[in-house]
């Protein structure tokens, strides 16, 4: 079970998140939506222990261990002058893995990452990241830049991961989230609002007011 309490999170004097309090009691896929700058990435950074905040996040009643969280940011952290294979080996070394696992996505083996498109860079990062198993997965705008085939492949991967883990997916494109998510969290004005599966139709009307 994941219990998340963020009393406040500021960047300098800018309030990003406040009084966030929710828990997730079962494995599955959870969507996170919100306008640009609403705090989706900050929420993920807090869960991944990448930024300080006031509050606590507990996984199974214990403070969350950052090694239990796999985070794929919107713009993945890759090195341009490595090949995707070398980048994967680099991650395997960071994770202390003896064996480099198989690829989820096929990528050119003899080409530098700098020559990759946005989607290919994301695939290279996902190949490296998903060598390890985590309890919580955070995918920040993961469908951006992926081609149609990869979107379907990745949907399958997310569904599989969601069977035995907690998976958060943020996106600005609602239909894929409606299809795969158990609940969707909307971040607005530093707060969070939860929509259950049967309430998804209210989300669009929520944005209609703009």
């Amino acid at each position: 079970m994941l219990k998340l309490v963020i009393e406040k999170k500021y960047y300098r004097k800018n309030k990003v998140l406040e009084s966030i309090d929710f828990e997730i009691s079962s494995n599955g896929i959870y969507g996170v939506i919100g306008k640009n700058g609403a705090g989706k990435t900050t929420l993920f950074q807090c869960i991944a222990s990448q930024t300080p905040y006031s509050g606590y996040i507990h996984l199974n009643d214990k403070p969350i261990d950052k090694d239990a969280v796999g985070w794929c940011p919107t713009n993945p952290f890759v090195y341009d002058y490595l090949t995707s294979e070398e980048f994967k080996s680099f991650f395997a070394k960071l994770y202390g893995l003896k064996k480099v696992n198989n690829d989820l996505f096929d990528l050119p083996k003899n080409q530098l990452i700098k020559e990759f498109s946005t989607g290919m860079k994301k695939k290279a990062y996902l190949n490296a990241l998903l060598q390890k198993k985590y309890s919580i997965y955070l995918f920040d705008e993961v469908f951006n830049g992926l081609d149609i085939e990869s979107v379907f492949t990745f949907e399958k991967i997310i569904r599989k991961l969601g069977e035995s883990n907690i998976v958060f997916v943020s996106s600005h494109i609602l239909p894929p989230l409606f299809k795969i998510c158990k609940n969707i969290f909307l971040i607005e004005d530093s707060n969070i609002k939860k929509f259950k599966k049967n309430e998804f139709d209210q989300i669009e009307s929520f944005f209609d007011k703009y």
Partner: protein
Amino acid sequence: MLGLIYFITVNNLRSYFGRKDLLFYFIGLLSLLFLLFKGLYPQIEKYPVWFLAFVIEIFRIHQRRKDFFIIRRLYFSILFCEYIIYSIPILILYAISDQWEYILILLFFILTIILLPRYRGNVVKYPFFVFSPFWTIFFRKNKLFLLYPISVFLIIKGFTINNIGLVYFSLALFFFGVYNILTQRELKYHICISVYKGEKYLLKQLKNTLANSIIVFSPLIMLIMFYDIVQIWIFFPILFLLLEVNLIKYAFFENDIHQVLVFIFCLVLFPFLLPLVAFPYLYYLSVKNIKLFQDVKTGY
């Protein structure tokens, strides 16, 4: 074809010369003539081989060009003419000093560069340990392997003419190449997600530095051993200093100026064993910083 050569050459030189700036062209031409006939001409008779180093510049231009798809039909002729145009100053110097054999050697190098299969798309693999990826990145990006022929030449020359200074200079070339690699900072995120925490992460990095440094220096170590085994003592301070550079990076991770100043301090006071004395403190600071990056505390 001549028009195409003209446009490609002008396009490549445009970064150096302004458009229709006659005064600039005039000053540029005067400076070039002065450099050629006053600066370089007296040297070419003494050191004709060194002027062949100009080939490296042509190789660099050839590797960086992206217009192969435009000139594919006249590939050979265009590139040959263009590189001859760039080489005109050196060719003139060789011609007026009557060193025709070097003109032939230069032309041979230019032909080789053009006819060599381009390894564009075929990424050169390096045998480095990737826990720190910058060894591969830096060698690949800056083509540091080009230092090998120069260093090998200097070492052989140094031992042949009994000038050990040349040998040390060639090692210094590599040392500063590797120094630049070791000052490259990995992303804090990558330090953060590593399963190796604090001291273990640092030790892993130091082992990586040691192993990769030995890989880089091993051809030179073997060459020096072949000539004079006693001279390999020089590698011990080099390896120690490289480990120290690695520590300095983590000890002053966010401050480039501090890194450079501390390194210069260590280098200058090396005879007084300052790096040895500072090693434990830099180690302590490095571990402290790595722990700080890895333990993002909740709360402010």
